[in-house]
């Protein structure tokens, strides 16, 4: 009998170990939120983000993204459902669960009269790290984010881009396993945006799970491995960015032509939905299963040569628009 018990114990340990290894950074089951006003912001959201992932949460304004993030961070009470951060319930283990999360909100939410360094060190304090212990980490973060020279200035004197970087430093000072960024690069110029992307990439490479919401779909396509689209409080798509883009049923290209397109283009219009932008520029939509070569060959048959071509919009943007357009309006 002894060996049976031994086997059972070992199996139990193995299952437990497997579960530990399978812990997700964020698990959301049937999450619901109805505000006192009656607005149902989340209608049973299920979402899983693996540890180490770079995850995009996309959706139009008012889709429920910020509500979802605020529930995860403890700023909004959920009406129903379950949220686990690194396997820890925000209901039963909220202190431990919160230790694992850093948040970079959409709106500025720090004391405008506080010094930059104090904002970061105070945040460390709220996570139980004394100022003296937090100081080296805070200084490193401010240096990495390029605002160390502003550390003794009041936060209200910072530019918009600097304020966003300050919030990233503040969100990371307690070394969270999961960093959630709500529109981190909104209103930030292109150069700073690229620098922030680079910073986030390095952070993700070092093992931090990153979840971001963004309106810049190029940002999501450039940075993220997986994504979910949320609309009207429901997740309507979820999966790897590459797979979802592979499911696009059409893609629109802009062709710059060496000579004007002839008048008789009925075949071209019916197959590729040609739209004339100007005399030398046209838009052509290539459906799934067709090749861009088919479009170019069709133009060649009309003795029109293509000088250059490009996507009309970012591919993810096109996918997003297709998906959102597919949801009936209430």
């Amino acid at each position: 009998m002894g060996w049976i018990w031994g086997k059972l114990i070992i199996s139990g340990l193995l299952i437990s170990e497997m579960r530990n290894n399978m812990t997700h950074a964020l698990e959301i089951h049937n999450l619901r939120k109805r505000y006192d006003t009656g607005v149902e912001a989340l209608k049973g959201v299920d979402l899983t983000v693996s540890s180490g992932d770079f995850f995009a949460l996309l959706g139009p304004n008012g889709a429920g993204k910020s509500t979802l993030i605020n529930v995860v961070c403890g700023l909004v009470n959920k009406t129903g459902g379950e949220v686990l951060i690194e396997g820890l319930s925000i209901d039963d283990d909220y202190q431990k669960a919160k230790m694992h999360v850093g948040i970079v909100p959409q709106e500025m939410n720090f004391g405008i009269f506080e010094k930059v360094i104090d904002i970061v060190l105070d945040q460390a304090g709220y996570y139980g790290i004394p100022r003296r212990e937090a100081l080296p980490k805070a200084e490193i973060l401010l240096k990495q984010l390029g605002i160390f020279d502003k550390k003794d200035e009041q936060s209200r004197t910072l530019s918009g881009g600097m304020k966003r970087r300050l919030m990233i430093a503040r969100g990371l000072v307690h070394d969270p396993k999961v960093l959630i960024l709500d529109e981190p690069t909104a209103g930030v110029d292109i150069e700073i945006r690229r620098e922030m992307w680079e910073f986030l990439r390095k952070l993700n490479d070092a093992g931090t799970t990153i979840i971001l919401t963004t309106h810049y779909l190029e940002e999501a396509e450039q940075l993220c491995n997986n994504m979910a689209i949320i609309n009207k409080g429901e997740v309507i798509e979820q999966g790897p960015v590459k797979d979802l883009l592979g499911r696009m049923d059409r893609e629109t290209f802009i062709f710059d032509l060496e000579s004007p397109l002839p008048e008789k283009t009925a075949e071209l219009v019916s197959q590729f939905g040609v739209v004339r932008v100007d005399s030398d520029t046209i838009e052509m939509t290539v459906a799934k299963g067709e090749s861009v070569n088919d479009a170019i060959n069709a133009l060649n048959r009309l003795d029109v040569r293509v000088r250059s071509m490009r996507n009309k919009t970012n591919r993810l943007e096109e996918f997003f628009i297709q998906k959102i357009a597919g949801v009936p309006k209430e």
Partner: protein
Amino acid sequence: MNGKQIWASYTTIVRKEFLRLFRVWIQTLLPPAVTTALYFLVFGKFIGGQVAPIHGISYMQFIIPGVIMISVITQSFLHSAFGYYFAKFQRSLEEILVSPTPYWVMIFGYVTGGVLRGLVTGVILLAIAFLFTSLAVHSIFHLLAFAVLTSIVFSLAGLINAIFAKDFDSINIFPTFFLIPLTYLAGTFYSISMLPKIWHDLSLWNPLLYMINGFRYGLIGVTDVNIMGAYGILVALVIALSLTVWYLFYSGRGVRV
């Protein structure tokens, strides 16, 4: 969070609140100092010189504890009310709310901030009082105990006001229309033994009477009320207001939506 982490979080809130007191000292410390000095000059020196002693104490000495307590009460109230409401208004409160800091540590932190402002104000005003008259402190224990308990009561009250406040104006409604009248009617400038019976009996329902008289007993050894009874009322108020704040935080009111 373990004990060390909770201490780090608590001291962070207190440090921030304490520094705010000195950063805007022109708004926080200077006004009560100027107002109180004027009270001492006008009521204590100019008018008080013509008034007969009360309980064998000069009028100047008699009004000092009450005048100091008016400022201790309003300053501790305003500190926690403005501190919490302003943090809510500019959303910096979210810095604490997203952290693992338990609500009770937040409550302790904001109340400590209010108590410190009350005490710092009290010490400054006491120093000013010594410029006008000589005082021999009757009991440092009772003096401190009543100052601390009163500051706790009004820091808690300030927090409750801030939780319900919809704008900055509503922070000023309670001190302007309730606190100031109650402090003036709490025997600050007179002994309630001098009042007609109806006003005397009505005064006994004013909780500020017990705070001011307790503090007066600690400073000059004179009181219109029973000291143990005054402690009882203050402790009961601390417990009742603590439970109210506790409920408001843990039910999510004013903290979450």
